């Protein structure tokens, strides 16, 4: 350990979307809350990157920042966001509009409230294609029909005429995905797409998203708090804690050899179906991470996990650990691994 590897990775060169040193802070009165604190990540064509973390760790804020969907002020976004090599942070609103929904599409956590209740499915499906491409209304409708079939909705003709409240939760999330895929984006950002759904529906929706990734090569960023979902779907994982990425690695590597104390604690804390030991329930204690998840506030000088970390030293509390590669494509921000 401690040896620094050269980060030479093939994927890094053709990453479709890259965030470099991305920071988001919210100014309110005299207080400044840092939600995302100098994070860098990227996703390549046909790859699924999972941004995983607990509530308030900044994963959703980072996603909204990618699409320029944060209202500014109060939000302040700094760093660089590169789409196919082109910097898109700070573009004028009109240019951003052309990117949103066309090159980068997003689906949200709450399918029940994310669709407009008073517009038909047809209207909501056709408006993005019509906004981004010069096609006629009837072409847009036939594209909408195809999109519904793509996401596994039967009798699309009927569905197009319906309103969101006439569809079930799972069906609505499928419509959201159809909407996102309508312009064949190169990047799909899925913010907790299955958190509001039941497990059986979750499995269906995730396998749908994985299929789209495979068939269309869409670079996917999956935001979730569920390590099980990460393990079964993502190609690479970035673990976030208190606005920072503490560890980044290929999924298999991360679960096999978690390096950051937080990642290790998190993986150990999850109840597992396959790890159920025989015996009475009382013997099955879960691993705990002591303490509680910190509230968003000003950026801390040291490692944000230090107060809960069993290995924390004075250096952890006072100096920000730098990101080191402990294996190819395995980056950790922890003083344990610094040379």
């Amino acid at each position, binding site marked *: 350990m401690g040896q620094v590897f050269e980060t030479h990775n093939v994927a890094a060169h053709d990453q479709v979307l890259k965030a470099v040193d991305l920071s988001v802070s919210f100014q309110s009165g005299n207080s400044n809350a840092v939600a995302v604190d100098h994070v860098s990540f990227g996703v390549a064509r046909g790859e699924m990157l999972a941004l995983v973390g607990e509530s308030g760790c900044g994963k959703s804020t980072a996603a909204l920042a990618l699409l320029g969907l944060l209202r500014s002020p109060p939000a302040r976004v700094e760093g660089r966001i590169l789409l196919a090599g082109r910097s898109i942070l700070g573009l004028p609103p009109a240019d951003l509009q052309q990117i949103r929904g066309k090159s980068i599409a997003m689906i949200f956590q709450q399918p029940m409230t994310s669709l407009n209740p008073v517009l038909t499915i047809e209207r909501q499906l056709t408006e993005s294609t019509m906004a981004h491409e010069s096609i006629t209304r009837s072409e847009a409708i036939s594209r909408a029909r195809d999109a519904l079939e793509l996401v596994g909705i039967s009798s699309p003709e009927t569905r197009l005429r319906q309103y969101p409240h006439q569809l079930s939760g799972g069906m609505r999330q499928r419509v959201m995905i159809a909407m996102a895929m309508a312009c064949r984006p190169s990047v799909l950002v899925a913010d907790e797409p299955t958190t509001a759904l039941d*497990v059986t529906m979750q499995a269906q929706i995730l396998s749908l998203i994985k299929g789209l990734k495979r068939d269309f090569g869409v670079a996917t960023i999956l935001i979730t708090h569920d390590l099980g979902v990460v393990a*079964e779907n993502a190609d690479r994982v970035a673990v976030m804690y208190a606005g920072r990425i503490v560890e980044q690695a290929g999924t298999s590597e991360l679960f096999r050899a978690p390096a950051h104390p937080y990642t290790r604690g998190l993986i150990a804390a999850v109840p597992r*179906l396959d790890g159920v030991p025989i015996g009475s329930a009382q013997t099955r204690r879960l691993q*705990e991470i002591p303490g509680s998840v910190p509230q968003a506030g000003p950026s801390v000088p040291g490692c944000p996990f230090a107060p809960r970390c069993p290995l924390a030293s004075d250096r952890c509390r006072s100096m920000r650990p730098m990101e080191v590669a402990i294996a190819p494509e395995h980056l950790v921000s922890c003083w344990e691994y610094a040379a």
Partner: protein
Amino acid sequence: MTQAVLEVRGIVKHFQTRGGAIARAVNGVSFDLAKGETLGLIGESGCGKSTLARVLARLDTPDTGEVLLDGNDIGRIGNRAMKPIRRRIQMIFQDAVSSLNPRATAGAAVAEPLKLHRVVPRNKVKDRVAELFEAVGLPVGLMSRYPHEMSGGQCQRLSIARAISLDPDIIIADEAVSALDVSIKAQVINLLMDVQTRLGLSYVFITHDMALVGVLSHRIAVMYLGRFVEVGDADAIIRRPMHPYSQALIAASPIPDPDRPRTQALPIKGELPSPIKPPSGCTFHPRCPLAQARCKSEVPELRTTGEARQVACHFA
């Protein structure tokens, strides 16, 4: 076999929806709960598990059926007669922060049941509250805080303190840890298990998380559209589910191990039908990979098979 502290017999609870239709939320549920036992109740949202929880905690009355506490039916007794029973059955809710009175301090929330039931003499209430804070791992300094000034994990510890203050026999936990963050969830689950060991109480633990129920429970009941479809020993059900729905639930539950060989068992199709118009026969048949003609017409009974397991399926 230990004596059952709670016997539930044929609970039915229907609701009238705004449109006048009848939703069959709970449609004939029976089970026993032994002393010191955890029964994990699992099912998807809308399957009736929360309604059942409310009936067991006597927040609702069952349409028919009995809830027997030490052999006495408490299903439909009045509020006055219910008050002493309240000490024995407590409930913990999903949303910890909003399950506490926003205008009461943490200390007052725990003192309230003690005073209400005169559990300890008035001058001892303060000491007892401090003991309870300690028992659930809350710093005594938080006593003067209001719920919105505390984290979700702290509020759930407070709810647990409030529930155990009455020294109940049974705690109904309705998705009590679902809203908590992973690292906090483990703390609260461990606390619940410690409390059970110390006080010897029984849990009905309601959740939609199969892995969680596997860790926590002695026995598991799988619920689908108002009925139990499989009941049995926790380990046995997780390792060898017999009802196709239990199998689907387990297959669909993600496991945090990317290198695990994937079972290519297709997760079931479709969604939970509406409890207003449940399918005929076995209500699971439209989504069941094994469904036959018989399943459409004939309602499968919950039958006991070997190894103390009950399954409601014609082919199990």
